[in-house]
């Protein structure tokens, strides 16, 4: 994937399309180019711990694969870092967050944890810190939640009329709208609903964040049979279940072809990843995916 000078990559897509695996693949692909990569996952529970069969993925990044450091960006810890940064004195954070009332309010309050997460991700670009990473790949939430995350800064800046939080929120919003530094990757699969969501999300990202977007189509099914072979088998096969199986394959590929056509009509250049029918995880699975991200995919391939 040509990410040139991009510093921050947001990976999103409909639930269940394989965002996390694609995000990890992009991280590995960038690392192969010699970049030092931070792969960030959001939320309370680490996906990559079980995926890479490892332990100890925490807020502090750790090098799980060569040149790829993984960090679990929990809202709580981001908020703590954020508030500490603002208040300068860590002790004050304790006072603020040990207060039962404040704690309840801050955990429910809109946008605060989103702002801290985005604040952390953009801190290098905003020149708050000098990052040791060349690029950050963020395995963001699924589309709906991802939008809520990305819209938080602009929302917050409307809530606060003045004050440091407003300036901070605007600063973050400007960064995530800067296509020279930030890139968006939309992951989809060749099915109707994920596709529809991808098209909608693409338009929203363009409109609201002036985003530079790449589309990755995951789980492309292929029987490796060309159409001549399928026609040949149709006349050749006699046993009922063999006929049924062939019919299953043909139907599945036919339905998929329609979706892929629709996708490539809208996006002239996409990346495609084949469905591997193996119980792979971790490095083994990434090894099959990473080469497929090195060049665009065309419909004639399938």
């Amino acid at each position, binding site marked *: 994937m040509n990410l040139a000078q991009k510093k921050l990559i947001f990976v999103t897509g409909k*639930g269940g399309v394989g965002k996390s695996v694609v995000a990890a693949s992009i991280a590995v692909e960038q690392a192969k180019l010699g970049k030092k990569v931070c792969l960030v996952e959001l939320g309370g529970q680490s996906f990559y711990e079980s995926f890479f069969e490892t332990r100890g993925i925490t807020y502090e990044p750790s090098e799980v694969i060569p040149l790829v450091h993984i960090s679990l960006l929990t809202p709580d810890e981001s908020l703590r870092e954020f508030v500490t940064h*603002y208040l300068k004195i860590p002790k004050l954070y304790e*006072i603020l967050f040990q207060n039962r*009332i*404040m704690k309840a309010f801050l955990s429910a309050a*809109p946008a605060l944890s989103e702002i801290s997460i985005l604040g952390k991700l953009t801190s290098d670009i905003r020149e708050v810190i000098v990052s040791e990473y060349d690029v950050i790949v963020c395995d963001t939430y699924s589309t709906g939640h991802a939008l809520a995350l990305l819209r938080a800064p602009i929302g917050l800046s409307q809530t606060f009329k003045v004050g*440091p939080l407003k300036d901070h929120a605007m600063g973050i919003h400007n960064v995530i709208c800067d296509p020279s530094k930030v890139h968006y990757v939309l992951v989809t699969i060749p099915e109707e609903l994920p596709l529809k969501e991808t098209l909608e999300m693409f338009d929203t990202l363009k409109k609201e964040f002036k985003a530079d977007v790449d589309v990755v189509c995951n789980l492309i099914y292929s029987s490796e*049979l060309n159409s001549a072979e399928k026609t040949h088998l149709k006349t050749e096969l006699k046993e009922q279940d063999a006929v049924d199986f062939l019919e*299953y*394959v043909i139907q599945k590929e036919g339905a998929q072809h329609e979706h892929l056509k629709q996708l490539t009509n809208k996006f002239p250049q996409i990346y495609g990843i084949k469905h591997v029918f193996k119980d792979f995880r971790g490095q083994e699975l990434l090894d099959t995916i990473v080469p497929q991200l090195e060049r665009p995919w065309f419909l004639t391939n399938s």
Partner: protein
Amino acid sequence: MVFDKLLEEKKVLICCGSGGVGKTSLSAALGLRAAELGKKVLVMTIDPAKRLANALGLENLYEIEKRVPTQKGELYAEMLDMKRTFDDFIYRLAPTPEAAQKVLANIVYQQLSTALNGSQEYTALERLLQAHTSGKFDLIILDTPPTKHAMDFLNAPAKIHTLFQESIMKWFLMPFSTLDKLSLGLMNRGTKAAFKMLERLAGSEFISTISEFFSAIRDWQKTLRDRTAEVHRLLTNQGTGFVLITGFNSVKIEEARFFENSLKKGGYQLSGIIVNRAFPLWANADSGILKTDKTADEALNKLKKHYQELKRYYQIHLQAYTAFEKELRQNVLFLKIPDLSQDINSINGLKNLMERL
């Protein structure tokens, strides 16, 4: 059909599951089946992607309780509009329309009702309670908002409840904007320090807006609390069942196990598990395709190889699911729906899906 028993017995079915497993299509298929059994059934979904609309072939689903043509029974569908449900809720709570409008205009409320953690879930449950209380339906099927983990749905409203707790309200109801000596004197030292910090972070205008918001809704607190308790009663009622919809891979099984456990702990009733797109029908049979013996046929060899590869792949998952099924209590329905290679987002597709229930 396996799920008929549930559709006959329950008043409310809540379909949970992580994103991308087919919750919406299956909720619609369950609704369709319930109508076929002669029920008056409402299917509710809360999803910005208009997925139920899509699955039911409806273009505009913003109206509530929209009739879907069926041969038997009565099927209604609706897509929850979060903002509107929240606004309606405020109108019903407020003593006068003017009081309601004041709250609706408050920027804190506007943020709360759309961006607050868990507000989608809260709205879904509020609307569920409303539809249930109306007594209009034999059965209501709620398709829950997509969450990363199935349990998030039940955990989210708790966050909102804390916000409306008396202690928090009281705190914000003090005359913050003036920050006079008296109000600071009323707080304990910790709260005082915390408050000063919040003001430093957010600016005093924000604090006064929050203060305004809470003072506008201060008298509704009891109603809110009662409502919350009622929702909880409904969810733990005998007539309410949870259906976990899950996909066919080992990660999803772990999630299903966790979900089953958490439901039990929370006092909720897991009534059924549907494993969607479990395995294609042919993967179960020992197919004659392997016996076809024409080794010189290149295409046939390719097909055979593909068949074996797929079959092995599905068998591994199948074994894991069989083990899980054995762990379940006897009264939890367990159903595997095969991967139907055709499109299910049409009324015929849904009927086809329904046949598998």
